């Protein structure tokens, strides 16, 4: 099959790769760029484990074609932090037991990261709606919601302290 030359910015780094136009963005990330944080769960945009941030928006990368993504700026869980400097969301997911098997976690956290930029001070109900594109089979969401709210509180108080 004819491949096309893709130019992407992934986690702050410009990358080039060859891919068939039909390749799914999740496969480009995982197979060609070895970014295995985002996973594959349902393949029909229902589960959200493939969630990444593309051009400043949360998207489900199982339903984006490689060709459509050409030129995009992408952030995945891998781009959120360095191991010695975790993002507050990562800390709060651990602190509040917001994960179990970990399979949904990269998508869940990268979605929460964008959600808190869209709505920095959400209510519990807003968190539940804002995170409704991400399924979890282990936690029953309660501790995920708790973690996101705790992260928001922490980020807000850090912001206030900085002002």
């Amino acid at each position, binding site marked *: *099959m004819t491949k096309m030359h893709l130019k992407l910015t992934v986690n702050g780094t410009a990358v080039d790769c060859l891919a*068939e136009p*039909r*390749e799914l963005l999740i*496969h480009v990330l*995982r*197979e060609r760029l*070895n*970014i*295995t*944080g*985002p*996973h*594959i*769960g*349902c*393949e*029909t945009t*229902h*589960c959200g*484990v493939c969630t990444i941030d593309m051009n400043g928006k949360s998207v489900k990368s199982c339903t984006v074609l490689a060709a459509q993504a050409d030129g995009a700026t992408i952030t*995945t*869980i*891998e781009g*959120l*932090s360095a*191991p010695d400097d*975790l993002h507050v969301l*990562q800390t709060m*997911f*651990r*602190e509040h*037991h917001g*994960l*179990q*098997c*970990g*399979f*949904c*976690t*990269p998508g869940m*956290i990268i979605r929460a990261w964008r959600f808190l930029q869209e709505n920095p001070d959400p209510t519990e109900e807003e*968190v*539940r*709606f804002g*995170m*409704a*594109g*991400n*399924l*979890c*089979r*282990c*936690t*029953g*969401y*309660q*501790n*995920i*919601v708790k973690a996101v709210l705790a992260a928001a509180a922490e980020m807000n108080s850090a912001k206030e302290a900085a002002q």
Partner: protein
Amino acid sequence: MNDHAPSRDERIAGLKGLGTSRRRVEDARFTQGKGNYVDDMKLPDMLFGDFVRSPYAHARVTAIDAEAAKALPGVVAVLTADDLRPLGLHWMPTLAGDKQMVLADGKVLFQGQEVAFVVATDRYAAADAVELVEVTYEELPVVTDPFKALAPDAPVLREDLQGQTEGAHGPRKHHNHIFTWEMGDEDGTEAAIADAEVVAEEMIYYHRTHPCPLETCGCVASMDKVNGKLTLWGTFQAPHAVRTVASLISGIAEHNIRVVSPDIGGGFGNKVGVYPGYICSIVASIVTGKPVKWIEDRMENLMSTAFARDYWMKGKIAATKDGKITALDCHVTADHGGFDACADPTKFPAGFFNICTGSYDIPIAHLSVDGVYTNKAPGGVAYRCSFRVTEAAYFIERMIEVLAIKLGIDAAELRAKNFIRKEQFPYHSALGWEYDSGDYHTAWDKALKAVGYDALRREQAERVAAFKRGETRKLLGIGLSFFTEIVGAGPVKNCDILGLGMFDSCEIRIHPTGSAIARLGTISQGQGHATTFAQILASEIGIPADDITVEEGDTDTAPYGLGTYGSRSTPVAGAATAMAGRKIRAKAQMIAAYLLEVHDDDVEFDVDRFVIKGAPERFKTMKEIAFASYNQAIPGLEPGLEAVSYYDPPNMTYPFGAYICVMEIDVDTGVWEIRQFYALDDCGTRINPMVIEGQVHGGATEGLAIAMGQELAYDEMGNVKTGTLMDFFLPTAVETPHYTTDHTETPSPHHPIGAKGVGESPNVGSVPAYSNAVQDAFRAFGHIHAHMPHDHARIWKIADGLGLHA
């Protein structure tokens, strides 16, 4: 800095042992996207396998033409049953004593059955090639109803078994019959029911569903022809059993097979079985000499690997007029699909369904189960439960409600009236179990008080009155559930799978500097074993949990064990961990005594050290003892500090709990909303309360899905109607309620640390709570029972049938 000798309490806290909500060690990698799941694996020259699957539920396969597929660039091989036959691998044994086609051998028995295996250089080429394999089918009549399957003139599904009147579990009565399993006293029960003052009867159906973890099943098989070693990485809840099975059916010596379970993205029973994908990947790797990866897509997962439930349970419950239960009878028609691929202990073809007398002191009971073949996918796995315990709990908790209606007694009161009393433990049930410990009345009272049960009943009555006056279209349902689980399979005397006793194991090595590694025969799929087993050990041997690595899942390094399912890890491997820890401690005691120059009996263990009795200021810490074990020649002792324990539990454990769900139901739309969900669990000794709470939240959410809409539905042609997550219900954060958790603590008397296991309780206990809430909402209008799942349309149908839309 001043030297501060930590207090005893500080030393205890520093261990992060039993009872601590220790944060999980697994989370660092998962929160940073550095988990290592099987599909993350990439090996040089790795090929990708994909299945051609049957679109028909029952058909003869008369020809397979793979020429066009083989000609496609990137395609390396296309395997069919004819290729596997010379190796004897076109069929494989199931865990239930049946056999299953690996690739269609002349016919197919369910939609989605594996027909051919395409191997290509990448998944795109494989997917394209699958489209090009031309299979000629001759359609056969389809049976999806187990009752119709047992009709005399029903089509013969398993032609390979034709004429065989003896199955793996006794006589077969019909060409589509698999087994009959019988327990209890049939005549006595019949007589008790005949003599009873009141008898309630009901057919309770627990529908077909699927564990549906977010990660599907998959593997990477790599045959190293130079060294003759096969390595198989995959989504295995029981890696050792997979190794043994792989050896038995492939003929490769067991020491030449290494099975590894990397991180697993949820299992819930889906990843216990052995699937054709694993076998085909192994064969493909042997044939091609290259590693072969196979990963299911979601539709394949739902259609082919491991459904759960599909039990038709016909019950009769007898009682006195004032509500004392006198007998229980149950007959189950169990739909197993095209092959019996249940994952139950060998002697239990219907799992532990004979726990169906529940939490009640029922003097006499009888149970019979008939397993039946139909044109549906094989499986019958324990979806977050211990071998058909969910079915049993749902059955008895519905029967109790039905009986309460018949007697006109409040369902909470009826339960309390019949609970096994605290002083009756250990309790021998009418269907053959010995319940280890329990205090049901205390738990029940606590639960009823917590939700304000009496006030809820008053509110419900007021709501019914308001509804009748036309002031509201919403009803209130109060769903009660009291469950007793049976977990921790199990004692080798009666529990084995394919002849492998269901013990489990732990091996501990203490390093010279006083840290440790523990390896177990289980495998976490999210339960947090690396965190909690270190806690058990920390309390046993006085080394901080943070200094203990827990490793599982690699058969080359871990001791043999039967894996993680059926809430068995804590009851069995957790016990092995404690026992191995005690062996370490025994040796440490001798070393401490030697170092302190006293007799062994003159020292005692104290948190993280051995002290001289009566002189606690003279002690040796475990850290000092560890180092000494490596550098001092202690007379009569081997150097080093290691232990291994293979633990064969004397009995199962019996966690229990009380769940109450309060639900608002819109009579016109069938829309439900959960106003309150209260879950009280008694899992004996609590290792990590945070993890327990997380398990309860997750299990109760799975229960929500199952009760309220999650169904693997088939049409009459055997087509799967719910093959994607559009239709297969997994709730989001919006549909999921907030849970209130609570507990009592009744330790298991026979478990070394008194723990009972909790992972599956919330699935077992919550499903009846949700279902009872729906049915209870309509009780005032004469409703008795309706089948799950209670999706909007089915709830509406209850209301419609009661004339509430007139």
